[in-house]
C-alpha cells in the first residue's frame, strides 16, 4: 500500500506533539516518546479539543480542555472523562520522513 508522509522528524520534539494534516486523513498528532515516533488522531474523542494543544508526559497525552488522557502508543483512554480510544497509526521512518499507511479507499 502507498505510504503517506505525515511530517519530518525535525518537526517533532519530545513532549511537544506536532499537528499534521496530510490529505485524506483526519487531523493527526505526531509524538516523540523515548526516541520513538507515534501518530494518533488529533481530535479528542470526548470534546472538540486538539490533543496537540495538550500536555504530553512520556507516553501519555492529556487533553487541553477537560483533563482526560490517552496512552499515545495504544490510543487507550487513561483518565476520565475520556472513554473512547483514539485511533493510532503504525509509523514507518523513511530517512527524515515520518510515514503512515494510506487509507484503503
Amino acid at each position, binding site marked *: 500500500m502507498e505510504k503517506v508522509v505525515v511530517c519530518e522528524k525535525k518537526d517533532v520534539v519530545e513532549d511537544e506533539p506536532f499537528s499534521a494534516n496530510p490529505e485524506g486523513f483526519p487531523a493527526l498528532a505526531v509524538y516523540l516518546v523515548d526516541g520513538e515516533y507515534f501518530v494518533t488522531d488529533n481530535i479528542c474523542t470526548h470534546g472538540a479539543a486538539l490533543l496537540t494543544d495538550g*500536555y504530553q508526559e512520556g507516553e501519555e497525552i492529556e487533553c487541553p480542555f477537560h483533563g482526560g488522557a490517552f496512552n499515545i502508543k495504544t490510543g487507550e483512554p487513561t483518565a476520565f472523562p475520556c472513554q473512547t480510544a483514539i485511533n493510532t497509526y503504525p509509523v514507518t521512518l523513511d530517512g527524515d520522513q515520518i510515514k503512515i499507511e494510506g487509507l484503503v479507499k
Partner: protein
Amino acid sequence: MTLIDRGGVIIIGANVAGGRAAEALRVNGYDGPISLIGDEPSPPYERPPLSKEMLLSPEEIPESFFIHQGGFYGENLIDTYFGQRVEKLDLNSKRVELGGGTEISCEKVILCTGTRVRKLNVEGSSLKGIHYLRTLEDSKRLSAELSPGKRIGLVGMGVIGAEVAASARKLGCEVVTVEPQKVPMARALGEHLGGWLANVHREEGVDVRLETGITGFDGLNGRVTAMFLTNGDRVPVDTVVVGIGVIPNDELAKNTGLLTDNGVIVDNTTQTSNPNVFAAGDVANSPLYYGGNGRVETYQNAQDQALAAARNIAEADAPYFKPQWFWTDQYDINLQVLGDVTSPAEVIVRGETDGRSFTVLHVRNKLVVGVITVNKPKDMASARRILEKRILISTDLLRDETNDLRQLLKISRQTG
C-alpha cells in the same frame, strides 16, 4: 408495597456524579449489586453542552453526550431506575423508597442528588417564555425559541447566563443581560477578570446591564413581553432565561437524619455523618482545598468526588482533596479557572488582559494558588501541575513571559 431485595450500593442521582460512581465501583473491583436511580428520564449525561452545543444544534446529539454508551449498564450489571424519584431513605431498615411504593434494599448509599435551579419570585415570573436551564428537557425547550432576530433577556450573568448569551448571539438573537453584581461571573472570576468578560460580551453585541436587578415582567396573553428593571427601565423581550444560582437537593438526607447545612456534610473521604452513606458532586458540602467548607458546583468536582466515593466503598480511605477547576467556552474563548483567584494575592499577568489570550497567576507565600487562562490551555496544564504539586518558582521567573511555564516546571522538578 414491592420490595426489591438487592442489598449492595444504591446511587441516588443519575448524573455525571452518579454515573461515574457506578462505573468506578466496578473499575475498583466492587462486584456486589449496584442500583442507579435518577428522576430524569435519560441515562446520565453531560450538562456543560446544555448551554452551548445543545442550543446551537439540538438535533445532533452526539453519542458522547451520554456519559456511557448503549449497553454499558447491562454489561456491568448495574440496575437502572431512570425517570424515578426517591421519596424516602430509611437508614435503619436500609431501604430506599421510590414513588409508587417500590422499596429497594441496600448496604450503602451514595447521594448524588445535585441541585435544582433557584426560581425568581417577582411579578409575572410564572409567565410563559421564562426559562430556566438545568436539564436536557430545559435545553430543548429553550433552543426552540432561539431563532435569529429574537430578543432574549438574561437574568443573572453567572456561568449559565454568560454561556447562553454567547450561544444566543451565535444564533443571531439580540441579547440583553441583567446582573445585580458589578461584573459577570463575579464569584468565579473576581472583579478585574469579570470586568474583562463584560467587555468581551459588549464587543460581541450583548447589551450588558450591571448593578441592575429585575423587579418584574410584563406579559400579554400569558406570555412574557418585557422585563422591568430596578432602574425603572422596561426592556421588551421575546424570551427570558433566568440563571440566578441553584439550591442543593439535600432534603432526602436531612429527613433521614444526616447532617446537612447548605448541602450534605461530608468529610474528605466523601463520607457523611453516617458511615454507610457517602455524598458527591454539587450536593456535597466538603472541606475545601484552601480551607473552610463548601459546595463545589463544577463538572470536575462531580466526577472526581464521585470517583473518590466509589473507591472508598470498594476499598478504603481514599481522601479527596482537589483544588477547584472549571472551564467555560464563550464565543471564541476557552476560559479555565483553577484554585483560588478571588482572595488577596500577588497577581502576575502573562499577556495582555485587554485581548483574548492571556494567563493570570495568583501567588501567595511563594506558591501559585490560583490560575486563570484565556485561550491558553497549555499554560493551564503546566500551571495545574505547579499548583497541585506546590512547586516553588520565583515570581521573577513567572513574570518573565519569555519563560514557558512548561519549561519552568521541568527545570524546577530537576533542581527541586
